């Protein structure tokens, strides 16, 4: 535990699909829409690229929240990738809940390339939610603590 007096800021990992959400984040930037710098974006070719291990791994390494953004169902660049994501994440989130982990720490949002405003709003909202939950204690791995 650090003893710094700085106010707590959550660490958020956002997996963004290259074709929609990542472009959505770009658009948010172009439009100068503010969203917290706590969000660390990882670009993936498709939301379907995100293996459940990635999400758990992010938590293990100290993330306080993980959000996965992809194209709207039906708009996937690869036709059906996000449909698979939807099934996988539904099961994973349900399992995390079953293990007693706060369900607000994980989220899936569909953000298109034209929805810069939605991207910023989603990130603002998610950061606020995770910040109110506080530090992630249940999923952290002390070996990964610096």
């Amino acid at each position, binding site marked *: 535990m650090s003893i710094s007096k700085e106010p707590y800021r959550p660490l958020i990992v956002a997996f963004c699909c290259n074709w929609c959400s990542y472009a959505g984040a770009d658009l948010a930037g172009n439009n100068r829409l503010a969203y917290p710098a706590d969000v660390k974006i990882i670009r993936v070719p498709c939301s379907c690229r995100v293996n*459940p291990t990635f999400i758990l791994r992010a938590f293990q390494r100290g993330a306080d929240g993980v959000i996965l953004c992809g194209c709207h169902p039906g708009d996937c660049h690869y036709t059906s990738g996000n449909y698979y994501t939807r099934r996988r*994440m*539904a099961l994973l989130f349900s399992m995390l809940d079953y293990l*007693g982990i*706060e369900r607000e720490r994980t989220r899936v949002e569909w953000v298109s390339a034209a929805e810069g405003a939605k991207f910023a709003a989603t990130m603002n909202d998610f950061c606020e939610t995770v910040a109110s939950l506080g530090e992630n204690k249940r*999923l952290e791995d002390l070996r990964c603590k610096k």
Partner: protein
Amino acid sequence: MQEITRDTLISRAKELLASGEVDRVYGWKRGEFCYDVTPALFTDAESLEKDFEWGDFCGANLSKYLVEETRKSEGKILVFMKPCDTYSFNQLLTEHRFDREKVYVIGTPCAGMLDPKRIRDHAESFTSVVSDENGVTVSTLFDGDVKLDRSEVMPDRCLNCKSKKHVAYDELFGEDGGTIASGRFDEVEKIEKMTPDERFEFWRGELSRCIRCNACRDVCPACTCEKCVFDNPNSGVENKAAENSFEEQMFHIIRAFHVAGRCTDCGECSRVCPQQIPLHLLNRKFIKDIDGFYGEYQAGAEVGSRAPLVDYTTEDIEPSDAVKGGDENA
């Protein structure tokens, strides 16, 4: 109806070996004690006669062994299967893990296996176990014979048996049963009804006993990857961590997730766990969710069926709605 005994199986196996129909037999072999029966390969009549075992402790599911064994030679393998094993057998066929032509399956009846751990709760230092319709008689070293009810000493997976029906066989011994509507999700529902804090404590308590022996992975008939994520030294979950940390939960979530939609609920993971962690409750949670979200699905019920996680519909439930069900319970 002719009674099925060890001798019935041995004589049929010998016939098939003698005729050249099969050249190897996969069965169970008695260990040092009556309860430590292990899977074994037999190649001749003498070893069958000497070591072959068939009884209340032949719980091991032999389907996974076929993956490696069928690759070794062109000959056919005779394998004995209980009803629940045939589901795993079908699931492996669906995934093209071995050649059906190389296997000769004999379906054996099953009245539910016995759990040595549960027997030990009632009778310490037991030496032999005899069971019939009236129950189970356990001989012990110090307390004489102990009579027990079969349901007292069956493992959870057999108490909640899902099917007495063989879904794959070349030859069937005994009569085939049907599928059973069991209360296999009762335990899962009980956990779902707890508050998140209770659930977390429950699972931390269970999973912190894990010694990361990987037996659950090694025995699982659905885990047949040649390269496993858990063998990667950079995965961070290769070994047991020296402290109480997320590593255990992560291992078990991923283990269960990798077989989600393909798990036939055979319960082997819980059977082999040396720490008696109820691992099947993780798998059953996935099965229950899949049934609830995407319609009833029994992995292995038929060859070639499409597993729910490699399928989709445009109307699937959103991940945010998937956990709302828990809200009402909490």
